[in-house]
């Protein structure tokens, strides 16, 4: 970001656009991994805890990238977004709806993050209730990308955004299908015979 700042307003703008696009991909991956954690889906050679931990790790990466995206957008002196618009939706004088959707996604994802960090204090039920907000945060972020993003004419940007939407939609559909079947979670894979004396 220092290099972008050194490059001036345009550098911050490019960095904000680039980080926003990558952030959408990362956010989509986090959602897919979250669904996989819940449904017990995992690559054959991956234990489940690794999928859950990867979901958590990528979430923290997303927070860092989100900070970069927001800071570069705010610090870009050409457009006036304002610090208040980082937490209050639809108050930005610049592209109110598009920026407001992004702020809404930040607020919802922030609630999910904070409650996840305080999961043990809150309890499982409250944590899960707030975690459902992730299913609202992702569409808000996606609509923000569509409306505030200015690069849909670029084929690979369109491909990235379409791919993100398809991945998340597939994950959500898989989860809904699993719930509709009503079956139990698949059993934990047992890597081998139980050690002696640990029945």
């Amino acid at each position: 970001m220092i290099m972008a700042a050194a490059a001036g307003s345009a550098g911050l703008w490019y960095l904000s656009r680039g980080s926003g696009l990558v952030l959408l991909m990362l956010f989509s991956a986090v959602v897919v991994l979250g669904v996989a954690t819940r449904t017990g889906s995992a690559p054959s050679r991956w234990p489940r805890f690794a999928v859950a931990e990867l979901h958590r790790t990528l979430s923290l990466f997303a927070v860092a990238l989100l900070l970069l995206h927001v800071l570069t957008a705010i610090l870009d002196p050409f457009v006036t977004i304002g610090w208040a618009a980082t937490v209050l939706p639809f108050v930005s004088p610049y592209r109110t709806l598009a920026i407001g959707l992004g702020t809404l996604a930040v607020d919802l994802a922030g609630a999910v993050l904070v409650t996840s960090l305080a999961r043990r204090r809150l309890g499982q039920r409250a944590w899960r209730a707030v975690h459902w907000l992730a299913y609202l945060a992702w569409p808000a972020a996606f609509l923000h990308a569509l409306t505030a993003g200015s690069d849909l004419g670029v084929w690979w940007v369109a491909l990235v955004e379409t791919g993100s939407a398809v991945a998340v939609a597939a994950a959500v559909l898989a989860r809904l299908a699993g719930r509709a079947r009503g079956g139990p979670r698949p059993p934990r894979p047992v890597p081998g015979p139980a050690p002696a004396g640990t029945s």
Partner: protein
Amino acid sequence: MNFDEQDRPGWVRLPPADPADEDTGAGRPYRASRADGVRHLRRASNWTAAALVAGVAAASGYFAHQTPPAAPAAGQAVQAPPAGQGQVTGHPAVAGPRPASGSAPVVTSGGSGVAVGPVTGAAGNTASGTRAAGGATIAWRDS
């Protein structure tokens, strides 16, 4: 993420393998599965972090490279897009036209005396005026 060094409160460790099983190998699958998971996780995390940095750099670099120059060539006036096609396609400062907007008064002129853009207060001591055309407000002034 210390998976090996310390337990987290509320978590229950998998039962340790009996040292007596070391020779027979009965306790190895648990340790191997756990170690494999940690190794997969660390590898995926590291690669993801590297990919994020590379992705942001590549995307930002691409946007910087493909953005058209800020100033139009001499003799060309910037045309605002027609109404309904007013999507901003880049940074307002560097990426070409924006839709006519009263909040961003920018006037460009190719030197022909014709300026295109939202201009307010055009009245002066010379003959001047404004008119709307194609979604843009055109201001002119007779010298």
